[in-house]
């Protein structure tokens, strides 16, 4: 069971790097959606015998992160008629290197954190840190509004992984609340993308600088 979990987490880490290294936004969205589906499965692995609430949580997470949110974002992408992140603030290769660096550092950080003995052998904490840091990197280096939404999604996935530590303590309601927040957030961003596109005839968020003060 532990090996399977660690294997899945490693796949998630690889997906992080992949999402940093591609400029086609549609592929990034699909990768992040697949990541969401994997994350939805993980809670089922942590329990010996998953009960009904876990099943519901997993189903909702998979449907939202795997189908609904990517659907909304793909639609926004189509409406705004963009395909690629043309001018990221730093290039694709440097951002992959940054992501790898962040993953290494996350492993270093989590070694020095005091852990409960049951979590000792898993990659949960480093994977969570690494995913959060990658989310930050996407947020800070990408210019298109829709890429920013992807960044938030990755960031949330990291937080979700961290939440796996607390799977016994965290009530279902909290997890559902976080998902609802995320869904609403992405929905709003998708609408905003359309409006930014109309107002600035571009979806580059650096045009928003003119709104300063």
């Amino acid at each position, binding site marked *: 069971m532990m090996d399977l979990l660690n294997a899945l987490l490693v796949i998630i880490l690889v997906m992080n790097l992949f999402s940093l290294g591609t400029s086609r936004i549609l592929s990034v969205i699909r990768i992040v959606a697949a990541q969401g589906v994997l994350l939805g499965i993980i809670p089922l692995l942590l329990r010996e015998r998953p009960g009904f609430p876990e099943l519901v949580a997993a189903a909702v997470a998979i449907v939202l992160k795997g189908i609904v949110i990517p659907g909304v974002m793909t639609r926004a992408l189509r409406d705004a008629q963009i395909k690629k992140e043309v001018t990221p603030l730093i290039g694709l290769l440097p951002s992959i290197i940054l992501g790898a660096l962040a993953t290494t550092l996350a492993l270093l950080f989590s*070694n020095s954190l005091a852990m409960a003995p049951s979590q000792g052998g898993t990659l949960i904490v480093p994977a969570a840190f690494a995913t959060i840091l990658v989310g930050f990197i996407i947020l*800070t280096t990408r210019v298109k509004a829709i890429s920013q939404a992807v960044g938030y999604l990755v960031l949330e996935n990291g937080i979700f992984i961290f939440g796996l530590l607390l799977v016994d303590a965290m009530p279902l309601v909290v997890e559902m609340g976080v998902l609802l927040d995320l869904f609403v957030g992405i929905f709003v961003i998708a609408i905003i993308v359309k409006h930014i596109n109309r107002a600035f005839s571009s979806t580059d968020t650096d045009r928003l600088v003119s709104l300063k003060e």
Partner: protein
Amino acid sequence: MSLELVLAAMALAISSAAAALVLPRASSKAQGFSAILMVSSMISGLAGAMMRLFGHADSLCGFPWQAAGGSAIGLDALSAFFLVPIFLIGGLGSVYGMGYWRRERHPRSARPLEVFWGLLVAGLCLLVIARHAMAFLLGWEVMALSAFFLVITEDFRHESRRAGFIYIIGTHIGILVLFAFFVLWRKATGSYSLMPIAGETIALGTMGALFLLALVGFGIKAGLMPLHFWLPGAHASAPSHVSAMLSGVVLKMGVYGLLRFLSLIEDPPAIWGVLILALGAASCVLGVVFALGQHDMKRLLAYHSVENIGIIFMGMGLALMGRSSGDPALIVLGLAGCLLHVWNHSLFKSLLFFGAGSVLHAAHTRETDRLGGLAKAMPWTAATFLVGAVAICGLPPLNGFVSELFIYFGLFGGLTRGGAGVSIVPVAAPLLAVTGALALACFVKVYGAVFLGLPRSPAARQAEEATLSMRFPMVILALACVLIGVAPGLTVLPLDEAIAPWKVAGGARLPSLASLVPLDALGGFALLLAVLCAFLFLVFAGKDRSRAVKGSWDCGYAQPTPRMQYTASSFAQSIVGLFSWALRQRVKRMPIKESFPRAASMQSHVDDAVLDGILIPAFRRLEGLSSWFRRFQQGLAQDYILFIFITVFLLLSTLLPVKDILARIFAR
């Protein structure tokens, strides 16, 4: 029973706000409905407060809200005393608003105004009945925020927005200081509840810090002189009934807070009383001097609020001095003057703001030098404004005289009996007298320029009398001013009840106010004077009907124009000149040189000494100094996220086992 009535009144005020929110936007019936709810709130609240003031026992009950941490609310005489103006002005103001801020004329802003009006009254009520820091601060913040939204009712005007910003900055500095105050209070007494505390349990230094924090926090709200900077702008640009509420009631919450705090301390150091008395005296004189320099009617009234708050603080200072030196008569006289002036000021200042509002409503300007002759067009407004003006100048037979008389009695009594801080009294008494004289000059200026003479502008010529719903509150307030003036004996019981908790530690009951001041003689004299005035008015009003109508003050010119009249500014100029060291009037004029001069003009303006003289330049400097930080604000979302990222990263880096790594590297 009395507390239940007050709580019912609070619920009615909230339901008035809710009704205004949900009923249709442009319907005047909805406005009437929420005004009816406010008036029933007023009746219920006044009944509850009066029951407490005329003899019912104190009541206390828990505040059933977990988050507030075991709060309690209660009604004692001091709360009841301050509830009276809250509910009175709350109810009358909403009636006034029906005529002054009609929904048909202000479809966009009338509804928020009514909503926040109801919330303001409810917040004020909660603040006054709170017996715990949490409930108190909750009420305080509801009050501060709803007052902010009321001030910016006309948010499309730059002037209103600016006044609103300055107000919210001021009030939030105040509340931050109050947070510090309550935290320190908790540390010193071990609890957040507002219960009496014996002086010796708190260290002297802590006590001094508590006092200074309270003085600043509550002083900002009260508008004490160096802290009054938010007040003139907010009062001038708010709708007039909101100005009445701000000046008549909201300012008093600063006074209430300070009184509540001081009533909990049994033996205050003598210096506190002297400091408050000195600040009060400075506030009164400077307030009235700045009022004299104003051309805007409502700004002028706002500076008079500073003056009257000064008078209230003088009374408070006297009472504190009495408490420190164990002089019961001084406590009673000082506190009676302070409290009664709270009532009186809320009565006559609201009356004056309502009057100013009627003038503004009729003539569309607040500039005294563009008005004139309104007494003929607006007899009701003119008559009630006159009552308010006489009352605020502290002249008999009206209410202002009574409360100022208490303070004079206290000052002179303190002088003859001696005691702590007596050396300040010979300075304070003449200052109070000077204030009265200057206030009289100021209101002669306003009344003469606005209501007498000839109209100075076409708008003033076309002015019409205010509607019934605006006249009614003014008449009620004017009658209340006369009532307290001619029958001051009525106030003895409420005042005695409110003063009772201030008894000297271990001492006997405080003497009744009635045994210290000859109230019956005072009332009789005032009544006589009032009857005489009424008689003279009837005699003069009966005559002169046949005479031709001519311009007043036409000075024998062949073809006088209204613009040749004495203006308010020229009337006040001699006094403004005397105080030029404080006022720093800016005058712009084109000198007349030739024998046949061309058109010339002259302008004068008095800036606020604290706001325009100190605060704004200081903050401009600060802005200049901190411009370096601008480079971090580029408006790029990615940058801001990067800052968060860097912070998280640095925090995480503290986890890195740097020592181990270094040790490992250098061990090889």
